[in-house]
């Protein structure tokens, strides 16, 4: 069981208000991702749930119990930090055993649990090593192991993959998702990387300046962003925004179209322009086109498109997938 409810949660550091007033419900077993640009308050929110920061106002309920004033350890949550935060003077075994030792568990039970966790995470061969002798990915697995053995009500991840290289990040992303399917425990994951959010989450919470902009499943957010901020933040490459005549024609202040929702032609189409940069990824080609009267736009095309810098092209948006916004940025 790991149901977490935030009720009118406020947080200020001195005069700086980080989270003005926030309500959120996280269901048992959900994988929730907090995503937003840096400084949006996502890590602070996680630390408030963990108990590492005190709320300025409001309440935090964990499994129906008011945990607002409780110490971090008594909330029954486990946290995995961005810097792994392993104890450098202890072996992997002792690192994983530490929370159990603190809980006063007997040696035999500790041993069983540590070995179990090590097996799940492929760490059995490294139990006697110190964190300094491990690679980044192994260290992160130890940090996860230390969290697993406590059998927490929920796991809190604070940008756990941002210190890893790109290939390892993808591998660890899969491991964490798999772990979630295996354990079925609530997980709250903070990241600024929308790809991580899209691929891992059951539910994404998009934050800006301490305010929730939208909550929903990855595809909900992708298909029906509530405003221009969410529309621009979710999806990679970013959505293209056009103001002026092209928007006015469609009864909007601005329109948004994703790079994958436009067709590309060298013969004819709605919006003529010139290719400024083409990025060939093999599977896809991203073309950055200077569209007449609209500025730079990105379009996604097939991997084998032979178009390069300087070629004149035409873009045609898929009208059914066009997003319309008013002057305040709200979706129409």
């Amino acid at each position, binding site marked *: 069981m790991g149901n977490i409810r935030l009720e009118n949660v406020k947080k200020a550091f001195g005069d700086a208000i980080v989270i003005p007033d926030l309500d959120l419900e996280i269901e048992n077993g959900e994988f929730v991702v907090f995503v937003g640009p840096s400084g949006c308050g996502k890590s602070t929110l996680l630390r408030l749930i*963990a108990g590492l920061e005190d709320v300025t106002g409001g309440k935090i309920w964990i499994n129906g119990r008011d945990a607002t004033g409780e110490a971090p*350890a008594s909330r029954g949550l486990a946290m995995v930090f961005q810097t792994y*935060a392993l104890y450098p003077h202890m072996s992997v075994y002792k690192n994983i055993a530490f929370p159990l030792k603190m809980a006063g568990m007997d040696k035999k039970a500790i041993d069983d649990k540590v070995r179990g966790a090590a097996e799940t995470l492929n760490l059995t061969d490294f139990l006697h090593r110190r964190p300094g002798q491990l690679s980044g990915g192994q260290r992160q697995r130890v940090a996860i192991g230390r969290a697993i053995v406590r059998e927490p009500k929920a796991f809190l991840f604070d940008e756990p993959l941002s210190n890893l290289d790109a290939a390892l990040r993808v591998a660890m992303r899969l491991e964490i998702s798999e772990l979630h399917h295996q354990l079925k425990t609530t997980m709250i994951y903070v990241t600024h990387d929308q790809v991580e959010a899209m691929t891992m989450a059951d539910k994404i919470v998009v934050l800006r300046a301490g305010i929730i902009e939208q909550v929903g499943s990855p595809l909900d957010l992708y298909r029906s962003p509530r405003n221009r901020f969410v529309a621009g933040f979710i999806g990679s490459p970013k959505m293209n925004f056009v103001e002026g005549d092209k928007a006015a024609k469609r009864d909007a202040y601005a329109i948004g179209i994703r790079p994958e929702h436009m067709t590309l032609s060298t013969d004819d189409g709605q919006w003529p322009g010139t290719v400024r940069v083409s990025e060939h990824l093999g599977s896809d080609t991203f073309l950055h086109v200077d569209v007449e009267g609209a500025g730079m736009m990105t379009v996604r095309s097939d991997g084998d498109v032979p178009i390069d810098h300087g070629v004149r092209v035409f873009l045609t948006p898929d009208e059914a997938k066009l997003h319309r916004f008013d002057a305040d940025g709200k979706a129409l």
Partner: protein
Amino acid sequence: MAREASTSRKLTYTVIGWSIGLLIFFPVIWTFLTSFKTEGEAIANPPSFLFFNWTLENYHEVQDRSDYLKHVINSVVISFGSTGLGLLIAVPAAWAMAFSPGKHTKDILMWMLSTKMLPPVGVLVPIYLIFRDYNLLDTQLGLVIVMTLINLPIIVWMLYTYFREIPGEILEAARMDGASLGKEIVYVLAPMAVPGIASTVLLNLILAWNEAFWTLNLTAAKAAPLTAFIASYSSPEGLFWAKLSAASTLAIAPILIIGWFSQKQLVRGLTFGAVK
């Protein structure tokens, strides 16, 4: 060419380094040599460096005239006592300032350090009067208190610097793992700060051992440490250079030996966090 230039530069640095080292060490080696001379040879002009009649007479006389062991015990009690008491106060203080700094933490640290810039003689009279009124004059306890107080800013500063090097997330992880404040310090903070704590202890021992202003002014016979023992050879009846040197050699020998064996630790501790 480049290699030659770097070799000659290395040689120059080596010569300069050794020269400075010898210059700094010269008074110690001169004291050591003088302690084996007779009083006459000690003041001879020109002085002889190595070619004199080596004698242990000064050491015998120093032993006969005063109780060396008593002074050693006083020095040990005062330096270890003040270091222990200082750590007891400084570890929690540095912990609090490093991991939960307030608005004025930096100001407090600067203020503490500024007290070290005050000439001690400026507070001699009030401290002397307080000591007299509380019967602390010429007591080990009194000196332990004074040494603790005068070295506390340095201990707090050093520990603060070491603690700052320890990532706060590790302590937060310990808190999430269910460690109480005490266990967090014992199991996580202290083991990680061992090099820093060790060099703080060593430096403080040396400072307390060598301190002469307060020990001379606040002791007479009972609690006099080795610094007072040396000074007793500079008396109104005249200066006894050879005996003074023998007494000095005896006084600095213990701390010199400790310093010699722990120099690696000391240098590591003092430069800890300097490059990052």
